[in-house]
């Protein structure tokens, strides 16, 4: 039995070769009244890359995704998707994409398999193609035994997988995922990541927004850190951590009363110190060594933890705020 890719890699119809840019944004802006949701961002995504937008709620990630998805018009700047301007070629751009929105918008009154069939019709796809394709995608989303269920009988994770299956019905080469795992339990998230990873292996360009640093680290080849509609940093997860943080972090808790005032007594330990309401972070190349220094000053934290730096630290460094408020 030969394996068949969910999304064939050599689709006809002028698909750019790997590494050629499929999305180009230059000085992209979107304002609502006086508020700039997206305030002049530029980036370029080559074919086959997993590209992430990392940032807190309200950073402008979803607005950027809507502009890429050709459902919201930009205020200024240039944007091209597969060489097309989404503002003038909406249907053509959308025909190239698979979209997994932040909020599921499945047809709850239709059965699981019918959701895929109906969605495929929006792309003018014939039933002779859609029927086998729907079954194939249900298998991919591990929903074969739910094919005849009503959508509202599915769990949150299953609905998410069905939404992903639906987004693949037209065999898109670009998949937009807006907060794909928000609200899912850890197990459901891991199943979803695994499915997305398989798509990535098949060469699908993934554009995803997230405010989970572990998700960004797992899935993204490259990402931009966005805050208040602007790009704060750009690079691979490892690169960003290297550039904006130390190798390790020592987390100390002295109790909520003392966290803020203990800073002075910790001066000089590690390269940098960050006092948060609930804990103190000491950025150091060697976390254990830093902890020994703390003890040698006679300070006794309630808890201590040495961990590797993450994108959360990068974000904290760049914006002075944490990702999940």
């Amino acid at each position: 039995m030969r394996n068949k890719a969910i999304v064939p890699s050599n689709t006809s119809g002028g698909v750019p070769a790997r590494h050629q840019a499929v999305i180009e944004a230059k000085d992209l802006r979107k304002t609502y009244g006086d508020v700039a949701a997206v305030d002049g961002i530029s980036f370029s995504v080559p074919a086959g890359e997993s590209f992430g937008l990392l940032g807190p709620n309200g950073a402008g990630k979803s607005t950027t995704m809507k502009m890429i998805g050709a459902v919201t018009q930009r205020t200024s700047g240039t944007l091209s998707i597969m060489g097309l301007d989404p503002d003038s070629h909406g249907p053509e751009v959308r025909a190239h994409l698979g979209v997994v929105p932040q909020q599921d918008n499945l047809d709850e009154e239709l059965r699981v398999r019918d959701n895929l069939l109906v969605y495929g019709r929006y792309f003018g796809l014939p039933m002779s193609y859609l029927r086998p394709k729907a079954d194939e995608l249900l298998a991919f989303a591990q929903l074969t035994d739910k094919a005849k269920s009503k959508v509202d009988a599915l769990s949150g994770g299953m609905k998410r997988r069905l939404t992903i299956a639906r987004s693949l019905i037209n065999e898109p080469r670009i998949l937009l995922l807006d907060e794909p795992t928000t609200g899912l339990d850890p197990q459901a998230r891991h199943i979803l990541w695994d499915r997305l990873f398989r798509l990535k292996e098949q060469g699908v360009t993934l554009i995803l927004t997230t405010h989970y640093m572990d998700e960004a680290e797992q899935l993204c080849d490259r990402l931009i850190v966005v805050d208040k509609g602007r790009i704060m940093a750009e690079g691979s997860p490892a690169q960003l951590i290297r550039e904006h943080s130390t190798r390790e972090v020592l987390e100390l808790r002295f109790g909520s009363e003392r966290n803020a005032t203990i800073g002075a007594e910790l001066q000089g330990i590690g390269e940098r110190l960050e006092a948060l309401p609930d804990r103190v972070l000491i950025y150091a190349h060697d976390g254990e060594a830093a902890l020994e220094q703390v003890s040698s000053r006679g300070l006794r934290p309630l808890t201590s933890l040495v961990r590797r730096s993450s994108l959360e630290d990068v974000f904290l460094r760049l914006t002075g705020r944490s990702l999940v408020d």
Partner: protein
Amino acid sequence: MTEEVATGAAAGTGSRAHSPAVAAAKARRWGAFYFAEQVLRVMKGYGWSILMYSVGQPVAYLFAMGVGLATLVEPEDAGAFGGVSYLVFIAPALLVSAAVMTAANEFTFPVMDGFKWRRVYYGPHASPLTPQQIAAGQIMAVTLRLLLQSAIYFGAVALFGAAPSGWGWVGIVVATLAALAFGLPLMAYSASIKDDKGQFAMVMRFIVMPLFLFSGTFFPLETLPLAVRWIGWISPIWHGTELGRVFSYGYEEPPVLTVVHIVVLVALAAMGWILTKRQFVRRLGQ
């Protein structure tokens, strides 16, 4: 094993999706039909109750009004109803009113569902379909339901012997047109509502019901005092009903009035469509 499941393992199903360019071209041309198909599939889910309603309602109304109430007004009042029996007089009105009420349901809650509750419109909006096509598709599907329901209603009217003229069947189209004349402006209003604070219940109570009662439905509009007669003049139910009577039993009115009915109904529907389209584009594009 897992790998096979994961990659589909659908050996032999070989067919590929057509290119994005083809998908976009097809959607540009047929998009509204594609969305109409979705709405009809959803309607099919409660098709049985639609059918029961379509058959049960006319039979109940015609029996109660035409056979029950009619015994009180006939025969000495026949002159007041243009020389026809009371049943023949009210049948076109009931046909039009039923279509308008269905439109009042189809163009309120499902629209709210599309934008807010279950966000049904946002799925197709991410596909090659345009907001205009989504609106048009829903209207097409509802129009089909209105035609079907009115045809069934007319069948019942004919069985009760309440459509003496051979042109009575035109009432099916008239009822559907009247329903759109009322429903499309309402759809534009529904599309503008951000929060449901009971507006639809108000529409039913304070717009649909008065229109139903004061549109020359159960008695000629002329019997009403001038103070409330204007309700009929602006009412799609009245225009539809008068038009229906012309076809159903050759009701005599100045020909210019017949033209006015058609113009008013078409104008209301057209205005409703333009406003709806604008509202869909604005709201989905946010």
